[in-house]
């Protein structure tokens, strides 16, 4: 059986996989009693953090060790190593990926999202092993990729394996993968807050108190582990920033503009080349990573070995004025090229580190030019490089919140927050206007999947009860009102139902038919409270999500919407028809927006 056939067969799911029982789906109602509850989930999150932290520590060490073995211990390797190492590694990685680990292509972020939204949280442990080996080889040998995204996927895979081992419910199993992802990313970045924000911003897209708690616990415990091995120093050091004049913020705004355009160029390059390479004959896929490696090695041979690998030591060098602004600009451009080559060739590895590298170099270049044009600027090259990292993070990865906190966390320098926010916002807006589809969404669409867009989810309007409720003349009576009065009012408003407020603040309802029947029975002058059935009508509040109303409107013709501070104050009423009509109108609006390209 060829790898392709087995891969295809794996794609078809459990029904065609021999040995798998037919109805092996998580049974929500029969979860192990000892495994229920948030508490266990949180405890498991801590374990996941520890395990993912250890795995990432090993991963990072193996990458560095590989780099020394393949490229030598000098920062500038010999020409032979420059050309041979990434080429041969590309060949080995291609063989491993195609024959043994077909699921490890790409960065790992979309794969984790797919696990959450499509595959019920399932990520094979084999993926973690394959990602570990192939990414370590590729990055260590000099491919222009980073370790963070693979760390995210490794953490997610370990979490998925642990979750399956503990027979978690389907819902919990879906959520455990992002928990592991946050742990992996936090350990790789040594930045727990950024990792948590990124997973929530880009993977989960929503959060509850329980999810957030587990994600935070896992991230923190993994960072504790990684820091105990790898130290707790921030990744980068820059002198404190002192903004003497508000006008200096303009300098950072310019950086945001340049970074925004650079992000668009980077995305376009990947979006154009990747499908073209994937469309080539399968046999070429054995050679693509090797050719990419050779080209990257050649770039290094021509005088820019800094673009090989993750490049953290060169980002630090850029922040310490090692390069001229011209060289910084060249490195930024070459890194875009080399990362594109590595990524579109299918070499496993991440884009976080290259994004930071490009941002740092671009920031340093822009800062260098600005300091020549305006010598009074007080920001150092290191400051611009650091802001530049956030700019590319916001513009390319389209994670605006994460981009701000990431810069603060990796530098330990909070005096820089204002320039970061300004520059990142500008870059993000430019990128959105010129490239409406974010990179991760674009990659999933190229893979033929329909994953929810986190950007769209963030901006999706949430319908609330107040959007559907009716106000104005409301069909509400008091408990001591008579049946005759109630029927009069119903006929006046041409309604079908009424609501009755009881003296204890509770509500009951009645229909026109019921009232007419009571009238026929001669109970016209009887108080409503004495003749209506005992069943109470629940109430809603205007700010509640509209989907909450769906729990009640099927059973109750009318549901009262009351003020939170005064339960006796009726704000409106809502019925099933009101809810359906509101959703229908929302759908039409969304269709129109989609058609107009908004």
């Amino acid at each position, binding site marked *: 059986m060829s790898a392709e056939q087995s891969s295809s067969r794996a794609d078809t*799911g459990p029904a065609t996989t021999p040995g798998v029982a037919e109805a092996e789906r998580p049974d929500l109602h029969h979860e192990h009693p000892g495994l229920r509850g948030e508490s266990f989930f949180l405890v498991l999150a801590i374990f996941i953090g520890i395990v993912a932290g250890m795995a990432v520590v090993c991963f990072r060490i193996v990458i560095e060790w590989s780099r020394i073995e393949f490229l030598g211990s000098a920062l500038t390797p010999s020409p032979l190593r420059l050309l041979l190492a990434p080429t041969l590694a590309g060949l080995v990685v291609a063989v491993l990926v195609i024959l043994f680990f077909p699921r490890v292509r790409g960065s790992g972020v979309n794969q984790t999202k797919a696990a959450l939204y499509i595959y019920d949280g399932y990520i094979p442990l084999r993926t973690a092993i394959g990602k570990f080996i192939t990414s370590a080889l590729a990055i260590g040998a000099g491919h222009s990729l980073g370790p963070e995204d693979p760390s995210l996927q490794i953490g997610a895979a370990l979490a998925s394996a642990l979750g*399956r081992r503990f027979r978690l419910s389907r819902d919990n199993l879906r959520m455990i993968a992002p928990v592991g992802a946050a742990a992996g990313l936090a350990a790789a970045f040594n930045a727990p807050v950024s990792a948590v924000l990124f997973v929530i911003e880009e993977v989960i897209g929503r959060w509850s108190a329980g999810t957030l708690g587990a994600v935070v616990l896992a991230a923190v415990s993994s960072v504790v582990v990684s820091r105990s091995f790898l130290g707790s120093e921030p990744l980068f050091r820059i002198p404190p920033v002192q903004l003497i004049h508000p006008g200096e913020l303009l300098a950072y705004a310019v950086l945001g503009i340049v970074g925004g355009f650079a992000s668009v160029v980077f995305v376009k390059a990947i979006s154009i080349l990747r499908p073209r390479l994937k469309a080539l004959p399968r046999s070429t896929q054995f050679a693509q990573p090797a050719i990419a490696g050779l080209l990257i090695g050649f770039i290094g041979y021509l005088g820019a070995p800094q673009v090989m690998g993750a490049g953290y030591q060169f980002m630090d060098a850029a922040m*310490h004025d090692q390069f001229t602004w011209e060289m910084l600009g060249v490195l930024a451009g070459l890194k875009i090229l080399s990362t594109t080559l590595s990524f579109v060739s299918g070499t496993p590895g991440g884009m976080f580190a290259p994004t930071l590298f490009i941002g740092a170099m671009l920031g340093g270049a822009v800062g260098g030019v600005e300091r020549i044009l305006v010598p009074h600027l007080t920001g150092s090259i290191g400051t611009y490089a650091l802001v530049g990292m956030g700019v590319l993070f916001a513009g390319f990865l389209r994670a605006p919140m994460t981009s701000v906190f990431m810069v603060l966390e990796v530098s330990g320098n909070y005096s820089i927050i204002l320039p970061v926010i300004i520059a990142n916002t500008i870059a993000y807006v430019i990128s959105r206007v010129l490239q409406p589809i974010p990179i991760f969404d674009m990659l999933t669409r190229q893979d033929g999947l329909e994953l929810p867009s986190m950007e769209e989810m963030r901006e999706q309007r949430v319908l609330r009860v107040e959007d559907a409720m009716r106000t104005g003349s409301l069909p509400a009576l008091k408990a001591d009102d008579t049946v005759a009065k109630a029927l009069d009012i119903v006929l006046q408003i041409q309604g079908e139902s009424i609501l009755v407020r009881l003296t204890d603040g509770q509500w009951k309802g009645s229909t026109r038919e019921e009232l007419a029947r009571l009238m026929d029975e001669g109970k016209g002058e009887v108080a409503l409270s004495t003749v209506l059935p005992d069943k109470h009508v629940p109430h809603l509040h205007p700010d509640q999500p509209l989907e909450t109303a769906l729990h009640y409107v099927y059973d109750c013709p009318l549901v009262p919407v009351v003020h939170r501070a005064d339960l006796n104050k009726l704000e409106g009423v809502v019925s099933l028809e009101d809810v359906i009509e509101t959703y229908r109108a929302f759908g039409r609006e969304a269709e129109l927006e989609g058609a107009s390209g908004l």
Partner: protein
Amino acid sequence: MQTAGHEDLLPRKTATSVRPRTGHFWDRRQTASFTLVLALTAGLTTVAILLNRGYQSLQENLAQQWLARGDAALSAGKANLAVEDFRNALAYAHDDPRFRLRLAEALLAANHPDEALAHFLSLWQDEPGNGEINLELARIAVRKHEEQDALRYYHASVYGAWSTDPEASRRQARLELIAYLLAHKDKTQAQAEVAAFAGNLPRKSLLRIEAGKLFVETGDYNDALAQYREVLEFDRRNPSALAGVGDAAFHLGRYRDAQRYLEAAVRENPGDSASAQLLQTVNLALHWNPFVRGIGPAERDRRALAAFFQAGRRLQECAPAKGTSLPAGQQNGALESALQTLYSRWLELKPRMTERNLRRDPDLLDSAMDLVFAIEQQAEQECGAPSGPDLALLLIARENEGAAR
């Protein structure tokens, strides 16, 4: 059904679960799961520890190797090569400030001050009180002509923490600061620093000679004298101290003391030509001074006459050099130049300048010597520094001015 383009993503495989069973089997499974997790954690921990130890050892070795290469390159004067080697070393020891410090120093040696500054500032951020770092930052600020920063860092260096021989290092830093202040003609602040330098010296320290020299450079001869005398108290025959006292005393106009110490200095160090020359000048000053104590009236008058006629010769040599013609006789009207005026006065006084008149008229000596002093001072202004007897007379003139004040 195969879905195109899915090969990068996961297989369509849903999570599995097991039908619930009661009792013993679940307890066993739960225990087994926890045991497995603990074993996995322990296993990963072991692997991580071993990997980490191995890698740290490798890093340390590589860092030391590159450091050694960098030191060798720097010693051989190959600063740029040293920079590359230290960069490589720093890549494997980025948490160790010593490596960054070496790189920064090499960058300075290779004339890359901006990059060196960036590294020093990073180091300073971690250790703002480190004396060595502050000193290097001061040196960079000096190169960049940033005076305020230079002073700030020098002071921080002087009062900062030093890892090796702190007292000597702080003294050295202060000496650099003093040199910088003197180069920028800030004698007042330099004096204060020299005073602090001297104040921190052990009592019996030969560095007091250095302190004395610095006091001389700032123009504070009294304190210089005190420093040299401190040295002589425990090393009576120290030639540098003897010469220093002689020099300071000379500048203070105390020529007898200067003579005594300079003679001793020359005795102790015959090769000290500067002291020998100064001694000659002092001897001249003492020999030509009619006001010096210990000489009789006849000698005083003789010296006054000799001084008077020497001053006349000075004028006669100086005026032609300035293109000024001296009057042939006494002039009553206004003259063009000060030299001419002085010469006219000299001519007027000349007939009266005899030993007999000097004996009879004590005021005549004072008048004559006043004229001599005026002539020598004017001649110095117009014709440059004198030598020989004229220098002696000039010194005597200054001594008298100081005494009069």
